[in-house]
């Protein structure tokens, strides 16, 4: 399944809701649905906020795929070359300041693999999640 999206928060959440429906159709656990939704929200938000600076005229794409034991989410954008897998999570200067890199830290935690490539003028980020399914399903 492939979605073409404008660079807006509403479109990010449209993609997240579509991914939830797609994952539930694969009978994966609600915990896995949560993990996938959070990872996609963080990665797509990075695209609209940083790559496209909230320029709603810009577009990016999200593709979902499942091979039975793993689910794949691929994000493509034409923003400046940026590899989020190399982002360092900076510690806050003091306990009341938010540190940088919260989003990518969550993505690393919830996904089993992150792979970045530059394909022509596009950033391609591929997320892989091993699936756990509802009890009673295979």
């Amino acid at each position, binding site marked *: 399944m492939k979605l073409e999206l404008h660079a807006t928060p509403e479109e*990010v959440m449209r993609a997240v*809701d579509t991914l939830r429906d797609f994952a539930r159709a694969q009978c994966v656990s609600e915990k896995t649905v949560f993990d996938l939704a959070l990872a996609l929200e963080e990665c797509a*938000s990075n695209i609209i906020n940083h790559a496209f600076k909230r320029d709603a005229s810009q577009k990016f794409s999200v593709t979902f795929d499942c091979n039975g034991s793993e689910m794949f989410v691929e994000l493509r954008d034409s923003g400046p070359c940026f590899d989020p897998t190399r982002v360092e999570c900076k510690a806050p200067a003091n306990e009341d300041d938010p540190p940088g890199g919260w989003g990518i830290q969550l993505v690393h935690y919830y996904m089993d693999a992150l792979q970045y490539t530059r394909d022509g003028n596009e950033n391609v980020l591929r997320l892989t999640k091993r699936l756990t399914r509802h009890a009673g399903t295979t």
Partner: protein
Amino acid sequence: MTLDIQIQDGVVAASATTTVKLSGSLDTVTAPELERHLAPLLAKQGGVKELVFDLAQLKFISSAGLRVFASARKQLKERGGQASFIHLQPQIREVFDIIKALPGVAVFQDIDELDRYLAARQRSHTEK
């Protein structure tokens, strides 16, 4: 998924407390809505000191939502107040734990535990 925000004034352990009940999804779309609701509560003039976030019905949170909490906590602390969190669902608690978003944050199982904490803190302040 949307975010429902209910704000109630009350008293916990003899302290004027404002409770913010969140239901649904605190994400990149809804986090600005929460910020707008919190703005008058966090105003330097007429704002509150004790803010309790009741997350019993919060199903989803992302870093956009955590940043709103972190900002509220910082503003309250600057005026000697505090943000507390009760009824975190396991998936929400896990997100808090992973990134240690709010170090030293006051997280309680329920209102009774918060009540005991605030009462003890008041006794401590009275004895000083």
